[in-house]
Structures are given as structure tokens and as C-alpha cells.
């Protein structure tokens, strides 16, 4: 579904991504972790072309993200993305946040889009909040709306860029619960996160990045059982002792 081949990216002289290669198959949940500045957010943003890369190739459902002739907008409309800072549209009501792209990008009628939106709001447990503005919601609620907004486009895969990093601890669970539900329903997901509990529960594979490189890319049981590298071992011991 998502195939990343030898992707390299530079910011000027700085080599942010170094020959990254990995694969996310249909229905698979892959967690990307690593210290800050390791390039994990940059990598996931390359997948839907929000960041450009200079070398290598990324294929999403067989379509090359970096190719000139690719209609990037069309490709993005098929891949959902959830941001660290939610990025809900503050000038639009919750319901409009969920319908605007359905109507303007997919060309759905208002009635159909609204029905879809209400159905998704129910799924993220926010049915009563359709007519509110994002600023009237808590962080956790906003992030759940953001997930629903992405799902409204009927995406073939979902990208999550540190979806819980900006949240207060008591709100993390409500967002993770929605993500677990999605994973269990078979959604293809690539998730940048430090939530190792989430990784243990639903991930198929864990990718560990450091200094722009994919250092480990293994099934979760292997990864948590016996990390193959010292760097991953150190990282795990730090965040696990911290969160336990």
C-alpha cells in the first residue's frame, strides 16, 4: 500500500533522511518511533507529499508521490492525515470541518457529506458537538474531530504525526481509543508516536529511527522483546521507564 524506497532528503547541507526503505501493507499498522529530530515526522510527511524529498521513491497504492505527473491533490485526498496540533479550521464549525473537503474535493452533495460527517462524529463519540467551533472543544476532542475529518474522505490509509504529543495526559487515552478502534477495523495506518502502549496493543511492526536513518524495522514482538541495536535499546529503556 505504502512503499518507501531509498528515500533521502536534505535541508540545505543537513541530511534529514538517509536512504529510508520500508513498506506498509494493506491493513497493517506500523508505528514509527525514535528520538526527536530523528526524521520520523519528516518521513511521514513525505508519504503524502507535504514534504519533498530529493532521492528515492515513495509509492502509495502504486502511484509515485514524487513524480511530476502525479496529481498530488488527488493522491492526498485518498490518504488521511492527522497532525500533532490538530489543525482544525477555526473559522468553521465542527460539522463544516468534516464536510468542506468532501464537498469541495470529492464533489459530494451537502446532504451526503453531512450524513457521513454525523456518522463519523458518532464513531469518535462527539455527536453532540457538531454545531460547535473547534475552540470550544478540549484538545482531545479536537484531535478526535481531526481524525473524523480525515476519515470523512474515505481514505485508503491514515497517517498520524504525533497525534497525542500536544495533549494533556488525561486526554491521550480518548484519542488512542479511537485509533485502536480504527486499527482493529483494518485501517492501514502509519503512526509516528511515543505511545508504546499503543504500539504493543495494535502495531504489526515498529520502525525505530535515529539521525534520519531507519535503524530497526521489525515485528513488534521482536522489537519489544529484544531490540537489535543499542540505540533502540537505550531509547526504549528511557521512554518505557518514563511512562511506567
Amino acid at each position: 500500500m505504502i512503499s518507501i524506497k531509498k528515500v533521502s532528503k536534505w535541508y540545505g547541507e543537513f541530511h534529514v533522511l538517509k536512504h529510508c526503505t520500508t513498506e506498509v501493507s494493506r491493513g497493517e499498522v506500523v508505528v514509527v518511533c525514535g528520538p526527536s529530530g530523528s526524521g520520523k515526522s519528516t518521513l511521514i510527511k513525505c508519504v503524502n507529499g507535504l514534504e519533498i524529498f530529493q532521492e528515492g521513491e515513495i509509492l502509495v497504492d502504486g502511484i509515485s508521490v514524487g513524480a511530476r505527473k502525479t496529481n498530488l491533490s488527488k493522491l492526498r485526498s485518498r490518504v488521511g492525515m492527522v497532525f500533532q496540533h490538530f489543525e482544525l479550521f477555526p473559522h468553521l464549525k465542527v460539522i463544516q470541518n468534516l464536510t468542506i473537503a468532501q464537498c469541495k474535493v470529492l464533489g459530494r452533495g451537502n446532504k451526503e457529506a453531512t450524513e457521513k460527517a454525523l456518522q463519523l462524529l458518532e464513531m469518535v463519540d462527539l455527536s453532540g458537538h457538531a454545531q460547535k467551533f473547534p475552540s470550544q472543544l478540549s484538545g482531545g476532542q479536537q484531535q478526535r474531530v481531526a481524525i473524523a475529518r480525515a476519515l470523512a474522505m474515505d481514505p485508503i490509509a491514515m497517517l498520524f504525526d504525533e497525534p497525542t504529543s500536544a495533549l494533556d495526559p488525561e486526554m491521550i487515552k480518548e484519542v488512542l481509543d479511537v485509533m485502536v478502534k480504527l486499527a482493529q477495523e483494518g485501517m492501514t495506518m502509519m503512526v509516528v508516536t511515543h505511545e508504546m502502549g499503543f504500539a504493543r496493543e495494535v502495531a504489526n511492526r515498529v520502525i525505530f529511527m535515529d539521525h534520519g536513518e531507519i535503524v530497526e524495522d521489525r515485528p513488534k514482538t521482536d522489537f519489544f522483546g529484544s531490540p537489535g541495536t543499542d540505540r533502540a535499546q537505550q531509547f526504549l529503556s528511557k521512554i518505557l521507564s518514563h511512562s511506567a
Partner: protein
Amino acid sequence: MYEFDWSSIPGALPYLWQGMVRTLQITGVAIVIGIVLGTLIALLRLSKNSILSNVAAFYVNGFRSIPLVMVLLWFYLLVPQFISSLIGRPSIDIRLLSAFVAFALFEASYYAEIIRAGIQSVSRGQVSAGFALGMTSGQTMLLIVLPQAFRRMIPLLLTQAIILFQDTSLVYVIGLTEFFGVAYNTGNRDGTLVEMLLFAGAVYFVISFSASMLVRTLQGKLAS
């Protein structure tokens, strides 16, 4: 002690009202065209194409470096020739038309800068969110960025409109009579120039000051 004579004001009120209508016409046209054109110029200025952004920068800096009175006179000399070469003698008052054009183009340069700042104040993440949903750059600008930018800019745009409202009095240099012109002419005719100008000043003050208060209230509302 100077004896004020206010007696000629009531009789002049209908003319003053006509003058005020003209003032508001010029202000309104300049605001509407200025904001539309200013938005286009702001977008050009932010464009990645360096030719376009330089042309827009030249426009903005050019108009902002020339006194408004001069712009008015220039357009008064230019617009009639331009129009008559295009469509022959127009039926509309040529002085009014050149005032419309001059004010609209001049205001566009000021609005462009306000709007550019407004667009830049919208976070990059909002643009990414629009893109991530499959919107094109144009859709993201139109549906996501500009509505937020304009909301933040309303107080500044209104403040600029208040300045514009007062600046319209400058059209006297091309012989066009709006509110100030009417006051000046009738005052001169009746020998009550001082009273008439005091009255006109009071009217400008009341309108501009109430508008400023409105802006302040709006600012408070938008901030909350």
C-alpha cells in the same frame, strides 16, 4: 470677540447631504475595489514567481511613496484621455471617474500590505491541513487561509477605511465637490466660512470617531 453666525447652516443642509453622498460613494468604491485588487496584489506578492512578486512589490511601494494629492491630479490628467481613446466621451462625470480610479488604485496598495500580513499570520499548519485533505493551493487559499486572514484583518481594514473617508476631501484639487467641497463653497458664498468648516469638521469627527469606537468593539470581540 468674533460673532458666530450659524444661521446659514440649516439652509445648506440638503447640499451638504449631497456632498456627503458623494464622499460615501468615493469611499465605498475605493474600499470595494481596493480590497479586491489589494487581495490580488497581496497574492502576487506572496507568489513564488519572483517576476510576479516584484511587480506587486513595485506597485505597492510606488503608490505608497507618492502623495495622494499627486496621484489624484495625475489620474485626473490621464484617465479622461485613456477613457476617451477607448470608448469615446463617457456620459459619467469624468472628474468623479478619475477620483474613483485614483482612490481605488491608491487604496489597493495599502490594503495589499494589510492583507499580505493577514495571510502570513495564518499558520503553515492550516495550509498543510488543507493540502492533506486534497485541496489545491487555490482552494486552500480561498476556503482556509483567506477567511481566517480577513477575520483578523477586519479592524485594520476598517481603520484604513476611516482614513480613506477623510482623505476623500482631497478631491477638491480636481474640482470635484464632495462634503468638504460643499461646505467650503457655501461658506465662502455666504461669508460664513469659519462656521461652515467648524460644522463640517464636527461631522467628520462624529462619523470617524464612532467608526473607531466600532472598530475597538469589534477588536475586543474578535480577540475573545
